[in-house]
């Protein structure tokens, strides 16, 4: 079938026109137009009114009557709804809803407030499944749901707003909404929990990451940075025990949600010979624990007598920023970043750690980790390496690929004495559960990158920064226990944060890792150091 040419104006037939357009016939009869021709010239042509008599159409051909081929009727409003719009003090704007745009794609969502307005681009919205709305797209699987997040970085007024969902065709759905004002932290948690808990077609994790790739991921990171800066501003700091001019090391522990790990660590580390040469700095991301932690810190000072600083932040600043802040309060040239659920494996731990620093050349101790053990006695960690996971998806008939870096631990679950995991060696990365790092080198690297949300991947990020700057992380056999994942309580927002972090980590380091750091035996020249017996 082929398209025919538009009929020439000269072929206009008054009788045919009035027969095919009875509303015009009525208008002419009522005297609103003198003739059908007059209506055609003024309106009919642009409206694409029929002018060719039945039976006169050329067979098997499309005849274009108007220049666009569009009729004069406006497209019908799409089926859809905006479930909610939330606005936070720091200018986070979060929108959720659904729309049936399986055939006619969503172009944008415009919100009109008193005094300001914003447009969410349809291409930048995360698309998710909405089983409750899928009756509208029963034949073709289509992610009707959407959510979007924009960090406006300024205080905005909330209240009523007019919302317009506009499709590519120009179809519009007009709604009036009441916008909910929420706390910044709460909005971050809502967005992240929504990311983690949404339903997707295909692999949920990869689909979730893909959904934030175009814009939301960057907006969330940007928003989180604002919250982080605010959280570390004006911390409560109290020192317990004595204050020496300098220590052999400053053990920095970031607490979140579980206060008991402070007194447990103090009880167990205080028994170690040589631990008096170290100070502890606890930095707490849970301000609601402040009173309890202060009491526990005072009791710890009475019972165990170790030198300790307690820093309580106003809000959860995440792992990186909290540790960076604590590092600035250290009174030594050696920082030991330690998780709260890390405990001594044997009584010689402090002396062994000090011996490593004294005996080995600086390039091997600039940044190092140690073997970590599960409570069941098996190995939990002996360094980390990187793999790349790729997941295709075919939603909407289009093939998309999402690739994400994965961090793996050498020797996880291995018998405790497996020599090949325990011998000192350079490794691509070590876990943040324990990192011993020269304070000057830590500063040179800019400390932990504070872009990551809550925690996860800052450790690998720091190690890759070290590698990039010319010093490989090492693993030295100064064993510790690590009750992995038991140091804090996990919530859906943490899972969402972790997904954002993995996306960010891949975006930051994917290229460098792909070029020489993939797999358990990477060929990176700094990792080819001579093995140490």
């Amino acid at each position, binding site marked *: 079938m082929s398209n025919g040419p538009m009929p020439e104006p000269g072929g206009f037939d008054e009788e045919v026109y009035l027969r095919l357009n009875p509303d015009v016939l009525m208008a002419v009869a009522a005297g609103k137009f003198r003739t059908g021709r007059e209506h055609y010239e003024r309106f009919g042509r642009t409206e694409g009114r029929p002018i060719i008599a039945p039976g006169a159409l050329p067979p098997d051909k499309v005849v274009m009557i108007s220049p666009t081929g569009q009729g004069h009727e406006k497209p019908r409003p799409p089926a859809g709804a905006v479930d909610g719009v939330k606005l936070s003090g720091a200018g986070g704007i979060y929108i959720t809803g659904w729309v049936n745009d399986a055939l006619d794609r969503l172009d944008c969502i415009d919100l009109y407030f008193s005094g300001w307005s914003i447009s969410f681009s349809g291409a930048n919205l995360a698309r998710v499944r909405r089983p409750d709305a899928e009756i509208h797209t029963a034949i073709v699987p289509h992610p009707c749901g959407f959510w979007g997040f924009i960090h406006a970085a300024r205080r905005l007024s909330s209240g009523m707003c007019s919302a317009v969902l506009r499709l590519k065709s120009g179809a519009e759905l007009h709604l009036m909404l009441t916008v909910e004002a929420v706390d910044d932290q709460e909005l971050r948690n809502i967005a992240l929990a929504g990311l983690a808990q949404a339903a997707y077609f295909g692999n949920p994790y990869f689909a979730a990451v893909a959904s934030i790739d175009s814009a939301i991921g960057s907006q969330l990171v940007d928003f989180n940075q604002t919250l982080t800066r605010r959280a570390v501003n004006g911390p409560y700091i109290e020192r317990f025990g004595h204050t020496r001019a300098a220590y052999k090391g400053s053990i920095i522990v970031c607490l979140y949600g579980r206060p008991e790990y402070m007194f447990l660590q103090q*009880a167990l580390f205080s028994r170690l010979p040589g631990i008096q040469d170290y100070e502890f700095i606890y930095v707490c991301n849970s301000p609601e624990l402040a009173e309890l932690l202060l009491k526990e810190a005072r*009791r710890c000072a*009475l*019972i165990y007598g170790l030198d300790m600083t307690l820093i309580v932040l106003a809000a959860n600043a995440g792992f990186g920023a909290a540790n960076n802040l604590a590092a600035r309060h250290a009174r030594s040239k050696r920082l030991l970043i330690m998780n709260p659920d890390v405990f001594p494996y044997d009584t010689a731990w402090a002396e062994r750690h000090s011996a490593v620093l004294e005996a080995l050349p600086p390039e091997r101790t600039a940044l190092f980790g140690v073997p970590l053990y599960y*409570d*069941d006695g098996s190995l939990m960690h002996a360094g980390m390496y990187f793999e790349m996971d790729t997941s295709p998806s075919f939603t909407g008939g289009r093939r998309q690929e999402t690739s994400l870096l994965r961090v793996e631990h050498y020797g996880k679950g291995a018998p405790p004495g497996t020599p090949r995991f325990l011998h000192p060696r350079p490794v691509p990365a070590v876990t943040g559960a324990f990192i011993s790092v020269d304070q000057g080198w830590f500063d040179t690297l800019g400390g932990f990158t504070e872009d990551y949300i809550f925690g996860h991947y800052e450790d690998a990020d720091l190690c890759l920064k070290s590698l990039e700057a010319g010093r490989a992380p090492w693993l030295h056999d100064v064993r510790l226990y690590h*009750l992995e994942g*038991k140091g804090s309580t996990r919530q859906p927002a943490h899972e969402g944060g972790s997904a954002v972090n993995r996306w960010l980590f891949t975006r930051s380091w994917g290229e460098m890792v792909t070029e020489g750091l993939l797999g358990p035996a990477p060929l990176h020249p700094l990792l080819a150091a001579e093995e140490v017996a």
Partner: protein
Amino acid sequence: MKVLIVSLYHPELVRGGAQQIAFELFEGLKQVPGVEPVLLASVDQTTPALYKSGARITGFDGRPGEFLFLTQEYDYVWEKSTDVRLAEAFIEFLALIQPDVVHFHHFLTFGIDYLSLARRALPEAKIVFTAHEFLTICAANGHMVRRTDQSLCTRASAMRCHQCRPEHPPEHYFMREMWMKAHLAAVDVFTTPSRFMIPHYAAWGLDPAKFVHVTNGQQPRQAHPAAPAGAPRNRFGFFGQLVDVKGLHVLLRAVVLLRAEGFTDFTVEINGDNIQFATSERRQEIEEFLAAEAELPLAERNVVFNGSYHHDQLAGRMARVDWVVVPSIWWEIFCLVVSEAWSFGRPVIASDVGGLAERVTHDADGLLFELGDARALAETMRRACAEAGLWDRLAAGIKPTPGRAEMVEGFLAVYAGTAAPGRLAAE
């Protein structure tokens, strides 16, 4: 020599075996020339009237050397208080008393970390810890009875403890063990009232060379009430708390079996209380049995429930029975009921494990039956009723129970460092 005795509760405020022994020791040490004992007994919110504003330690009813420790904010998960002022008050008390020996008879209500606190406050003092059960090892009330199947536990581990108390992950119990051991490291000498406990602690990782067995001892209270001559020895008594581990249900099941065999010429008298601390399942079993028993015509009842009793009533309750049955389904560390039965000349029929098996010699001064086995108990009870001369022979075999003086001598040897590990200190 100054000896500070740290006691869970005062026995005149809250009854219990550990505090009774601590108080007996305190009273006994007062009689020893050159020894100055001080008692620091805890109270908790069960006696709120004893709390004085701003005070953490007070005297006790004007008695010399007796003090009350007004506990606050106790955390039963980690067995510690969070109260800073209490810890400061304890340090100050130690500084004021300057004891040569700090003898913990328990850590409950004080906190296990008070062992470390005492060590830090008094580096030169000897710290003695008397284990009255396995609470440092076992988070399930220190009973070492597996909640999965009620079997006796012989080995604590992170996984096994998690199986008993799944509300915490295995890592919690791994941590708990390290936490407990960190504080037990402050102890110079451990004592246990029964020898069988020492291998348990050694298997758990403590040094058996630091353990000394010192028996519990009490002042004898009264002479034996006379038993009716010539009457059949068919009256059995249960004394103690009506909680699961005391095994009353085993005795009641034995009664059911004896009746089913047509044997009804016996009585069982139950003396005790605290059934509210039994599990709902066990409580229901006991209460349903007693309710059904109460429905029977008086002449057909075998079981009588007498309720709780004061020590002053013990002689009267003991006079009504020939045998004392101790059907405990846990290790039963020492069992003061055995001492009480013996002090009234009553042979004991007991489960064959732990402190009971250590104290009761089968067929010499009592009878043992397999722990938890109602049929074995029923057969033992039937033998006790039927075998001529058995009661007289076993009653004659009862040896004098250890007295307070014997216990005090044992602890003095511990304080002096002359007690041999793993042996009765007074031996």
